[in-house]
């Protein structure tokens, strides 16, 4: 009897504790999401006092899959952004973590300042790099290139330009053009990587510190080279944290908006920018909703992988 009362009060308490959060999330996230799904089947435009809607079935979705080349080019450019950023972030993040895991004078200082780029607001980061990339003689990167004699003294590169690097090499050049990998996009990848790599570094570093030294000592006695140690001991042990980073970062990279919109407005159409343009610039709410839904579904798919990984790897 008393056990049953305990059970009941536990459920009631859970309800009381969860209710405010669930209500907030239901009303302000789930509600609008369902509304967006509903809108995606309509031709919806703003009129005074709301919107005019006309039911058009799956036309919005069909439009994107069959008729709209911009949609596919935005998928390509977003995929390029995501994959290239991920590769650089992982390699750089792991390398920096391995260096910072060694003992050296001033290690705790270096470990603290590593957080700085991560804490910088995205908008400040975007405009800071815009200034560094300034395409004239007062841009810091152009200045640096000239000081290092990589560029001749009278040459200034437009870093946020639309020319495609490696354009003259067959196949690679064609591929770069096909995905829309302009110089501007590559420079934005660099700027974004600068901000996010510390996160990868810190997560990897935290994992590295939990590894027992005895593992490496044994390998050292066995005469394994450091490359072997990394490949056969460190990397397999890092697998769980790397998987988490991989999935989390894929989701965040795929929905990128801020830095690209601030630096290039609508001229590099990643999926996020294209959605925003359709919905908020052309006020085509139905089509914009359909696009948001496609993006949302994709990200939901990745997040399900994430959940699966967490439950199989960590617990």
């Amino acid at each position: 009897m008393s056990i049953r009362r305990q059970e009941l009060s536990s459920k009631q308490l859970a309800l009381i504790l969860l209710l405010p959060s669930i209500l907030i999330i239901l009303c302000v996230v789930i509600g609008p999401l369902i509304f967006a799904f509903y809108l995606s089947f309509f031709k919806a435009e703003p009129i005074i006092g709301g919107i005019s809607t006309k039911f058009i079935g799956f036309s919005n979705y069909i439009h994107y899959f069959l008729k709209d080349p911009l949609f596919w080019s935005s998928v390509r450019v977003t995929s390029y952004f995501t994959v290239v950023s991920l590769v650089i972030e992982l390699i750089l993040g792991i390398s920096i973590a391995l260096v910072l895991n060694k003992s050296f004078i001033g290690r705790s200082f270096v470990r603290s300042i590593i957080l700085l780029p991560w804490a910088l607001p995205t908008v400040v980061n975007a405009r800071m790099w815009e200034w560094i990339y300034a395409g004239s003689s007062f841009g810091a990167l152009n200045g640096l290139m000239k000081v290092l004699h990589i560029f001749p003294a009278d040459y200034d590169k437009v870093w946020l330009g639309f020319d495609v690097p490696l354009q003259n090499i067959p196949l690679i050049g064609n591929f770069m053009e096909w995905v829309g990998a302009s110089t501007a996009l590559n420079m934005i990848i660099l700027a974004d990587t600068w901000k996010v790599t510390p996160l990868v570094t810190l997560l990897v570093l935290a994992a590295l510190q939990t590894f027992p030294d005895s593992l490496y000592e044994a390998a050292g006695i066995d005469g394994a080279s450091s490359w072997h140690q990394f490949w056969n001991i460190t990397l397999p042990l890092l697998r769980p944290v790397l998987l988490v980073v991989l999935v989390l970062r894929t989701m965040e990279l795929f929905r990128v908006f801020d830095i690209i919109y601030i630096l290039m407005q609508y001229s590099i159409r990643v999926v996020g920018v294209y959605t925003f343009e359709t919905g908020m610039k052309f006020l085509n709410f139905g089509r914009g909703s359909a696009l948001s839904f496609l993006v949302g579904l994709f990200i939901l798919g990745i997040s399900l992988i994430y959940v699966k990984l967490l439950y199989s790897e960590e617990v």
Partner: protein
Amino acid sequence: MGIGKARIKKHMSRIILYVLVVLIVVWTLAPFAWLFVSGLFPYKELISDRTTSWFPENPTFKNFQAMFDMSSHIGQRFMYSLRNSFIISGSVTIICLIFGTLAAYALARLKFPFKNNIVMSLISIRMIPTVALVIPFFVIIRTFDYYLIQANSNFHFYDTKINLIILYVTFILGFVIWIMRGFFLTIPTELEEAARIDGCTRTQALIKIVLPLSAPGLVATGIFTFLLAWDEFVLALVFTKTTNSITIPVFISALGSQYIHAFDQIAASGFVASLPPIVLALIFQKFLIKGLTAGSTKG
């Protein structure tokens, strides 16, 4: 001979290590340092050839002062957006911590039906891109405001801080619940059980035992929330217009135009605007790293 070689090798690897460390430090600090130094340039020197002019000949704090000068248009906008960002991020942090902690406790400790489903859906919600929510939000808020105006109400949602606070709370709340749940799971249940045997109720045990123990988690989560709210751009871009509600990201993104470089203003205001998050992150570093790991790896 062999020993000498080994020593040289050891020295070499030390030297390489320090070179790498210096490279990492320069890579991390140089861009931000350049932003600060740029803020010290008078405008004329700022727009000059970089091969010769890396430091201002006549360094000045004028750019920074201009941002805090309430008599100028730009200073006024900056001060108001700074104020709005503090009010919005602060409120969002407090609201999210209160509701999020309660929900997280229930999800970490209590047994009830559909628990796993709720946890799963929280993770998924946290992943929804804000760009995808902007369109329904916009339509709903437009419609609300239309009827509010029809009803001669003084209150409306567009261009108010309250609107942004509500929207921010929703997309950050799931995140807060998720991280706090991770922290609660690391606190051993024995302590709570002992307290309850001594006659505490669940609520008392929560307030007297669990909350004090999870204080580091609360600090970390609070800072995360603050940083997320301080950083948010899309929603603020769509739903703010005047000094009544514009936030720092919107202010900084709007500086300059097609015809005018405003890099002196961008450098000064950008530096000032990044100070609160950077100072918070550096002071509470240890908690943050713990939170990052707890939030992203603990199932």
